[in-house]
């Protein structure tokens, strides 16, 4: 017998702000968190913009002795996990230690790598920082979350590029639904805003020089963001019994692998992952009221995603709003599935459609209602949140408004 899964805690950190209430306010107001990059010297780069987390002061969250051991990415993960747990109330009280898990995206601590390698190669240092390895390791964020929150059950990281956080939340969902766990904290953090990584993204020729415009005919590529999102997933019966605030219900998870190309997406496979999520949730395509799209604003992604949506939703697509919040908080890579999940939960709970900002011109290849340039009030019952990663690893979450 499958258990229902409640989302009882949320945490977020992005270019829209450093907690969930700022995130919600930004989504509703159509705030664009993209601007001139401040944290990295971009004078030698063509691309000067990014979606940075601003006003994040590590010393406000961590003791000085912790900071040498924890990369900016893991700092973000811990902060959003704390937010989500605080939001969920006394969720861990009375739960056996082995029945609480933590699953987060696997993200390299790029700041540690960049800082240490610069000292080694460019400055001729004899040795890098002694904690480069623990700061850089991709499982660092989930380890720090377990240490900080006192989690002692199943905990691990999942790597699937830009789907990492969605795969993490989906896996945690399976574990709670199957009865293996009572509570899971899940999500993902990422900060690739380093000199080396920005230069590497620029070399791949996918960055927009002047803003993120998903589904717009003049879209020019993606904008790198940083941030983190986290959710607390809880057995529904337990959440109801303790009188928890339930933000939404997680009802389905679909996955697929293109098995085709390391960067180019595949339409049929993206469609399959959306179909699997609907099947898993027991929902007909017509039941979906909103899609939080992957929507990176590269020419190829958006065209392929629009085609995949057409395959899954057919005529219903004409009545189905599809938006990309990457137009507001950039592409946060391994964190994006978690931030988009938080966005979708807020849309369901508050009854609104997050916008696609920066939209200028309709594209026949992306014939969608992308909620252009302003949020809309709408009572939505069911939504999906899609992540389609480089390398063809797809993960789609299906969510339902919680109506008591």
């Amino acid at each position, binding site marked *: 017998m499958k258990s229902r899964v409640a989302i009882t805690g949320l945490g977020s950190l992005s270019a829209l702000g450093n907690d969930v209430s700022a995130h919600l306010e930004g989504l509703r107001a159509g705030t664009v968190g993209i601007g001139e990059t401040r944290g990295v010297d971009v004078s030698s780069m*063509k691309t000067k913009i990014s979606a940075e987390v601003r006003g994040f002061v590590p010393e406000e969250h961590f003791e000085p002795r912790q900071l040498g051991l924890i990369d900016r990415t893991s700092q973000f993960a811990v902060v959003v996990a704390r937010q989500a747990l605080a939001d969920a109330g006394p969720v861990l009280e009375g739960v056996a230690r082995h029945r609480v898990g933590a699953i987060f995206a696997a993200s390299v601590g790029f700041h540690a790598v960049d800082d240490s390698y610069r000292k080694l190669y460019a400055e001729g240092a004899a040795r890098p920082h002694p904690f480069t390895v623990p700061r850089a390791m991709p499982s660092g964020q989930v380890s720090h979350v377990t240490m900080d929150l006192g989690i002692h059950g199943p905990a691990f990281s999942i790597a699937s590029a830009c789907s990492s956080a969605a795969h993490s939340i989906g896996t945690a969902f399976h574990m709670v639904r199957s009865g293996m766990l009572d509570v899971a904290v899940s999500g993902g953090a990422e900060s690739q805003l380093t000199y080396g990584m920005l230069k590497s993204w620029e*070399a*791949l*020729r996918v960055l927009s*020089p002047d803003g993120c415009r998903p589904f717009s005919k003049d879209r020019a590529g993606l904008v790198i963001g940083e941030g983190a999102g986290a959710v607390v997933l809880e057995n529904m019966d337990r959440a109801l019994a303790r009188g928890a605030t339930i933000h939404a219900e997680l009802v389905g998870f679909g996955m697929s692998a293109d098995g085709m190309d*390391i*960067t*180019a997406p595949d339409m049929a496979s993206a469609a399959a992952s959306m179909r699997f999520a609907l099947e898993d949730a027991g929902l007909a395509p017509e039941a979906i009221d909103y899609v939080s799209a992957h929507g990176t604003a590269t*020419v*190829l992604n958006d065209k392929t995603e629009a085609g995949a949506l057409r395959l899954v939703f057919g005529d219903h697509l004409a009545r189905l709003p599809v938006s990309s919040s990457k137009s507001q908080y950039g592409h946060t890579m391994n964190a994006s599935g978690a931030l988009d999940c938080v966005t979708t939960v807020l849309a369901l709970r508050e009854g609104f459609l997050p916008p696609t900002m920066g939209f200028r011109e309709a594209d026949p290849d992306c014939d969608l209602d992308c909620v252009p340039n302003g949020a809309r009030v709408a009572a939505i019952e069911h939504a999906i949140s899609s992540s389609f990663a480089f390398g063809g690893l797809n993960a789609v979450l299906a969510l339902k408004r919680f109506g008591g």
Partner: protein
Amino acid sequence: MQTDDPAVAEIVDFISGEVGVDKSLLTPETPVAELGISSLDLIETIFKLESRFGIEIPNDGPLNGNDVTVGTLVDHVAELLAAQKGKTA
């Protein structure tokens, strides 16, 4: 795309070798995609052309699109090469 120009011929030879396509197929009007050169292959080829000829091919130039032809690619590289020679001459 003036194939009798030695600079152009050198560029064509280099591309032919890098992408493993016979020179005779590299005609100006042929879209590179039709030669089995994906957008990713094109990015790598551009990178190798930059390294080989010591030029910088801008991100927002004529090669930024999905319908690049052999002629566009070769002519753009030839122009950048000529401009660079002009500078150093």
